[in-house]
């Protein structure tokens, strides 16, 4: 395509991407903004086309959203476009390859800001494949994006502050939230006052959700988890249990809670397909997630490629906006970002570190699994089959465990079960989980063979 390259292509129009686009435009750059959604906002500010009014009460900081959308208004939008890969280099220019149905779009750019965001991290439990069991983010997406409740009587569980707005939103729209089961003890926040106080808005936000849960009489349980779901064609009940410090079930503490829907999440998994396709260096963050390594200017190990938001460390929307602004300034090639912005990023990162310290995922979840508990939902691979690959077939790394068991080889390509398979492998081999081994996916979105065949240059690179 003979389109002249943009100065900056921003992939992702959530908090980080919108902030990057706005900052790059303010720096005088020509900017393309590419997103799979049909309107800006990403998962955080997800809404239907048009007015946000109907779901305003479910959203946080819409003022910031509106400011960012206004700031990014000068970007050329490529919305409804699923980016399946990025290629190129700073010397030769980059190309963002996207599809909408069968139609392919290529967006050329001198520099990239990748803001792909994250999705709920999952650990398997008995019955988690029953219809009516949803990720916490999925329940939230149906509510914010469609005003649809996942059920009438919902149980919420997992770990992390995200469970609070999910439960509060469901309750606000008329669901009976039978309980929130937080596997950690949030009282641990007290030890991190130094990290929390400088970002007081976070305290206010948390207090708001806590008040909403109290108002709707939603029981909040700590050091307890949903350890099994039961039902025939859909979920009808869950078993909840007390956990010890390592998250093993306290014997005799199990009880059954009736429900018609479940929302579970255990922190977030950053979407790294695109940075990995370009060869960006990674590290394991405090929450155990694989993230992209970035410098002060949000630049990755690959020149010309910046990453902002959850992909370089899960930390929430406010941090994503700060990082996006800094990345946008850097990608526009102007002066460095204001010191106030860098200070804000530092404070929000300290807050994120405290959040990760209070909400770890402990290895004891592996003891909840029966041999026939599914780990890989797509290929229907059980925990027993993964363990057979490790204990009997001789797999000593996660890639071999995957090849021998087929865990992670289905439609989602290990996005959902990759973390669990890496952890099960690590427990067996006595090593740290190899997340990179389950994160590389050369094709980040489904494309037809015809589209792939129509791009011989890219195949040559792969």
């Amino acid at each position, binding site marked *: 395509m003979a389109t002249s390259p943009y100065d900056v292509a921003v992939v992702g129009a959530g908090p980080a991407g919108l902030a990057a686009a706005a900052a790059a435009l303010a720096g005088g750059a020509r900017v393309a903004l590419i997103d*799979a959604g*049909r309107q800006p906002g990403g*998962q955080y500010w997800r809404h*239907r*086309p*048009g007015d946000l009014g109907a779901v305003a009460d479910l959203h946080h900081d819409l003022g910031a959203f509106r400011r960012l959308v206004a700031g990014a208004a000068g970007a050329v939008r490529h919305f409804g476009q699923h980016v399946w890969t990025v290629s190129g280099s700073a010397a030769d220019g980059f190309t963002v390859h996207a599809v909408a149905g069968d139609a392919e779009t290529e967006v050329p750019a001198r520099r990239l800001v990748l803001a792909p965001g994250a*999705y*709920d991290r999952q650990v398997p439990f008995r019955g988690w*494949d*029953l*219809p*009516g*069991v*949803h*990720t916490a*983010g*999925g*329940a939230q*997406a*149906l509510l914010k*994006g*469609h*005003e*649809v409740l*996942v059920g009438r009587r919902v149980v919420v569980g997992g770990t992390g502050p995200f469970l609070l707005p999910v439960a509060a939103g469901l309750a606000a729209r008329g669901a009976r939230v039978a309980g929130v089961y937080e596997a950690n003890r949030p009282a641990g926040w007290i030890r991190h006052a130094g990290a929390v106080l400088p970002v007081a808005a976070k305290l206010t936000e948390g207090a708001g959700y806590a008040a909403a849960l109290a108002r709707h009489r939603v029981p909040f349980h700590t050091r307890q988890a949903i350890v099994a779901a039961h039902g025939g*064609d*859909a979920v009808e009940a869950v078993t909840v249990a007390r956990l010890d410090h390592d998250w093993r079930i306290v014997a005799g503490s199990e009880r059954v809670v009736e429900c018609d829907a479940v929302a579970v999440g255990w922190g977030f998994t950053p979407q790294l397909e695109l940075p990995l396709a370009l060869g960006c260096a990674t590290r394991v963050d405090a929450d155990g997630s694989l993230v992209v390594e970035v410098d002060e200017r949000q630049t990755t190990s690959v020149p010309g490629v910046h990453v902002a938001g959850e992909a370089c460390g899960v930390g929430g929307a406010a941090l994503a906006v700060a990082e996006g602004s800094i990345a946008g300034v850097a990608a526009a090639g102007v002066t460095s970002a204001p010191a106030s912005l860098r200070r804000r990023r530092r404070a929000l990162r300290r807050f994120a570190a405290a959040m990760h310290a209070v909400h770890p995922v402990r290895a004891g979840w592996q003891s909840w699994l029966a041999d026939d508990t599914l780990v890989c*939902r*797509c*290929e*229907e691979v059980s925990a027993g089959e993964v363990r057979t690959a490790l204990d009997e077939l001789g797999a000593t790394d996660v890639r071999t465990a995957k090849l021998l068991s087929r865990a992670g080889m*289905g*439609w*989602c390509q290990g*996005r*959902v079960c990759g973390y669990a398979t890496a952890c099960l492998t690590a427990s067996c081999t006595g090593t740290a989980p190899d997340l990179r081994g389950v994160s590389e996916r050369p094709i980040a979105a489904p494309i037809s063979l015809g589209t792939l065949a129509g791009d011989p240059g890219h195949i040559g690179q792969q």
Partner: protein
Amino acid sequence: MSAAFEFDGREVAFTDGQTVGAALVAAGVRSWRTTRREGRPRGIFCGIGVCFDCLVTVDDVPNQRACLVPAAAGAIVRSQEGDGRGHLAV
């Protein structure tokens, strides 16, 4: 604004901007696919296009993610068995 698509012979109403998956959940439909190996029912899990659990056949095209496909008036939506390509068998 309300309109409807057809799902396995019944009408399912949707409102502007809803996906097929959201409209099905709103109509009380929990699952619309069975798995290849065990024939287990599946519906929406992640809701944001990541997990591919909610695959459905829309206007004869199988394996569409119901959580991403916009609902359209008059669309013919069918539940799906296995890999959704049973109709290709002779």
